[in-house]
């Protein structure tokens, strides 16, 4: 079975990444918060897929796929 090293990180904040337009950031932040991405929450980075452009993370008991741009908004 393929084995992988996962990484657990504490979320500090959700910040606007440079390549995200302003009008897209607010709804994105809202969606991330609704999934439980709040400061101080533990986020486990499980793996990168889709040629490194999608990051699979675990938050609480939920597995979430984020694209590179969305993941870059999470500050650890």
């Amino acid at each position, binding site marked *: 079975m393929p084995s992988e090293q996962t990484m657990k990180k504490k979320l500090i904040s959700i910040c606007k990444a440079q390549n995200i337009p302003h009008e897209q950031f607010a709804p994105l932040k809202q969606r991330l918060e*609704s*999934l439980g991405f709040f400061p101080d929450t533990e986020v486990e980075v499980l793996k990168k897929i889709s040629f490194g452009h999608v990051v699979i993370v675990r938050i609480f*008991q939920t597995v979430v*796929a984020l*694209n590179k741009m969305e993941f870059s908004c999470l500050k650890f």
Partner: protein
Amino acid sequence: MSQILNTLEKTTKIALVGSPNSGKTTLYNWLTSSHFKTVNYPGATIDYAVGYLHEKGERNLNFQVIDTPGIYSLQSDSEDEKVTSRILMESVDMKPDFLLLIVDSTQLERQFYWIKQVLKLGYPFAVVLTMSDIIEKHRNQIDIKKLSSLLNGVTVLKFDGLLGQGLEKILTVIKTTESIQNISSPQFEFDAKQIDALTIGNVSELQKTKTDYLQQTIKIDRWALHPLFGYGFFFVFMTLLFSSIYWAATPFMDVIDTVFTHAIELTKEYIPGLVGDFISDGVIAAIGGVIIFVPQIFILFVGIGVLESTGYLARVAALVNRPLERVGLGGRSFVPMLSGFACAIPAIMATRNISSKKEKLIAQLVVPFMACSARLPVFGLLIGFMFLNKNPLFAGAALAVLYFLSILVGVLASGFLSLYLSKVGSIGHNTLTLELPMYRLPNMKVIFRQSFEKLRSFVKRAGPVIFALAIVLWFATSFPRHQETPDAPSTVVVGETYASQLGKMIEPVFRPMGLDWRVGFGLISAFAAREVFVSSLALVFNIDGDNDERIQAGLIDKMSEAQFESGPMQGQKIFTFASCAGLLIFFIIALQCISTVAILKKETGSLKIALGHLVLSNVFAYAIAVAVFQTLSLF
């Protein structure tokens, strides 16, 4: 009339509100006795459904139940969540009188984000805890009293979606809503500790079970989302799905075939004359031409249902995100695209889940290129003809190739649209943020029931169109008839019928595709519904009244003998490998379904876009089909 208006005015509206996959639609089905689809992927409810309460088989007009799309938050940018927000915050006609908040017991910590937002709106409400059987399986339970006291004494109920346990209590609460409408909504702040404290029993064991469950999912994902094997599995599953549509359906199709053949024979035997001809050659042959493909369509629905309910579909969406991004789409477009293989109409509606305007528009325009189930009868007939007397595996492989070809057409179209839209101005970046549900074993009973419902709606939709066209086509292919004489009954001369006369006028348009008026006639009738093509062929190729053979086999026999009756190609065979290949290409590219055009207009908000798609795709399909036929004819 005034009585109806009075009833409507008195109707109490109950809205079911909850996050995606929390079990809203399941409860809605129990409350209204309907069989709507519930899936393990965000977006089962893409529009809201409204139904009257059903009790002991009786409809109760005093209560309307609204099934709203799942929400993570009330301030969302996705269209489906906006539907719920609008119902709760803006709607006048559909403004609910009472809310049933559907809360997934296994994900309590995540539910309170939207619950807090909804409660601030001030609606009277009750809480329904779903999935509590999972908690109780591990000797735990949610402390209902504590939860109720945290919510100012609001009613909290449990509901088991599989067995319907708890339904009676929910019905009692619904029917007493009037007496509790004046309750004030609580303003509260929850913290994680309070939420944890709601679970009674061995919390650590429950946590361990949840963690074990999660770890199991993560372990499977090591293979399913592997950079190399992940795509391998994806390819294998898709090939299995698409090829099984052919070989797994064959035995069932044979049974249907036999039944219809006997029905035709019996009708001809017992009902002589014109009426018998009409019923056997017109109605039964036309309906049989479509019903025979029901097993294939059913297998497709079941296959997609299994992929959805196991949780694998969401993984594939994440896996193919990057390749789809390259052509202007994204992972969120994957489910609408795959649903497009079943039917373009719900698939186009499912694009509401996509928040990027650019991605959404591209997905809406590309979905019709996916080979929908209505094309299956056409594919089945033409492939059956092209691979007659050959190993059925070849036919299965050919069908898989057609599906991949339709994906290729979709990819090329979306790449082109992406380039075009980038040139005319960027309209947003693609977003993913996709919850990957835990793996579950599929509930085959539910999947079969849902597939059966979809199949029924497919047959119901196609049936009246086929019947109406059957009458028109039978008339057009059976008249004028030669006068009846004492020695002989009235007869039909093939080249003199109304259909023949009209068809010959339009034949020059279809001749470059290697087709005569009869096939052209079938192509035109396919604009009503693609599957009508087969029944139209069945009718126009049986105009001599000789229909003793089995429906499809008989049609294939006729096709192999069919020749051009006049013009420069007179005497040449119509159905060759080249002309069938051209026809298949035409069916892959052309947007023919008028219902799809209507839904495109509704979802894009532009008649110009919908009609533009109709015209351009048909012109393009015609040009490519001509090119394919002419090129293959050289060999």
